């Protein structure tokens, strides 16, 4: 599918899709959205880029194997869950929230970091699966 139109469009779509995915991620806690959907949208951005420009170019763009995202994301989620246990002697996964809201982002809490972890894991898993399949095909 190396058409000129798609190739040109994908260069613009990649950053836009990534922005949307981050928007969806941040929107998550009270509204529809969250880490899982956000991660899927982000991986769609890379998959589209791979369709238009070939897998090699996308890999060069990523600079590292997407599989490495999995442990990183898991670690982020894990730390957000363990933080209340270690720091505050509260049960695992207890939500900790900042008192004051930050402009644009709103109130920050451990739930956001859990979602960020999910976001990274989902990207890692989806991209690893899709890259492996398209490599062997």
């Amino acid at each position: 599918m190396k058409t000129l139109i798609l190739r040109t469009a994908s260069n613009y779509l990649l950053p836009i899709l990534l922005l949307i995915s981050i928007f969806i991620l941040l929107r998550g806690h009270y509204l529809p959205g969250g880490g899982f959907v956000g991660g899927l949208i982000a991986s769609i951005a890379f998959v589209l880029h791979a369709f238009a420009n070939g897998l090699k170019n996308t890999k060069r763009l990523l600079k590292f194997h997407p599989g490495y995202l999995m442990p990183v994301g898991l670690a982020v989620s894990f730390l957000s869950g363990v933080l209340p246990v270690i720091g505050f002697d509260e049960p695992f996964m207890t939500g900790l929230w900042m008192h004051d809201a930050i402009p644009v982002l709103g109130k920050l809490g451990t739930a956001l970091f859990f979602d960020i972890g999910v976001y990274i894991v989902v990207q890692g898993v989806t991209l690893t699966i899709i890259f492996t399949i398209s490599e062997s095909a």
Partner: protein
Amino acid sequence: MQQLLLYPLLFQLFLSIFLMFFWKKIDAQKIISIVGGFIAVFLSGVLFYTVWNSGIQTVQAASWEAPYGITFVADTLSATLVLLTSIAGLAVSFFSSASVIPARLRFGYFPIYHFLLLGLTGAFLTGDIFNLYVWFEIIIISSFVLITLGGEKAQIEGAVKYFTLNILASIIFLTAIAVLYGLAGSLNMADLATIIPQLENRKLVEVAAILFLVGFGIKSAVFPLYFWLPASYHTPPSAVAAIFGGLLTKVGVYALIRIFSLIFLDDVFLDDILLVVAVLTIFSGAIGSLVQKNVRKIFSYLIICHIGFMIAGLGMGTEIAFAGMVFYLIHDIMVKTNLFMVSGLIYRIKGTNNVRLLGDLYANFPKLSLLMFIPLLSVIGVPPFSGFWPKVSLIIASLNEKNYVIMGAIIFGSLLTLIIIARLWSNVFWKKGEDLPKRDHFLYFQKMNRLKKFQFLAPIILLAGVSLYIGFGAEHMQQLSNRIASELIDNTQYIEAVMPQNN
């Protein structure tokens, strides 16, 4: 220190994530896994000590109170099983580091292995029935990976059977949860224990109970639903088979114990079904084992046979029976894990697990043979080895109940186990073996360096030591089992620990 309960669980999760960062560095993974295993044993030991001294511990995850949030509960049974899981986990970590070939280790064997231990620990600790389902999913997903890792033809064939039946079991389990939730409107086990006895619709409660029995029955390999186990357990590497044989079916038994001692009580119909299933399980396991020619298949059928003993204890439902069942569970986890490692060691020495071809082991390796003799004697239950004491409790319980069929089945099962193991001993250790052609590219035990030999033998010695302790320190184990049995019989302690506001 309230959070102590979750440390064994969180530590396994931490280990598996940490191991993923060392994806390509196999040697580092081995060291982390073994060191982590020691820490896990320590943490579980601390948890057990705390539960033993200060009673049932609970944590409400994310601070959501009991009937709504997910509760983690460590009563004595859970704490004991978590401790046993970590001990077996440590042993198998050791054993894997030497016996599993690098080609398998390279695809994330250790991270997945610790995910499996995470699932087991979680299943033992959770107090929420839907959360139990989630832990079961973690267990079976990681076990699918472990059983297919390597991708040999026989392995895939075994894995397909394993996969199909376990997915089926999960679906039935999920249906049962749905029915239960529709009936009671709660998923917290302690909450269910208070609601279910008051429900009017007994028939539907019974249906839910039967669904649970079928779902967990498949997972714990009881009578009509056991055939996936011998079809799949001999295919993966012996280290994987060891953790599967030691713990995977036992987690099904644990779930049955929890459900039928906490939620579905005093149902004569169900108890009868359990007893019938138990007798048939003992018979089919024992007779199946009798005709097998592969060491690991023999052990696989023995697992089924001995699951029957535990189900029998559960079906009788008296305090002595529960004590015997729990004692048997403790003994069985240690000894079955060890037996599969022994089969792995035999395979490494001779290059085959076929009983017809094996032989001469005692003549060539007298000390090793004596070491392997310990788990074999334990599984038979020759006094004073560990299998003997729980059977005494079970037989006393069946005498008290005047249930001579159960008593006969237990004696029959023990007798056949004795015959099977005696024949195995004479065939594998005493008989003059065939001259086996030397296999190329196969690392025989005799040619290993000292470190590798140590890695092979240390876990077997460790678990044999634990088995010996269970046998010779039977008084302590009996105290422990009696306490667990009394907690299981009187479930108010459990309910009160989870939901103190009700009283």
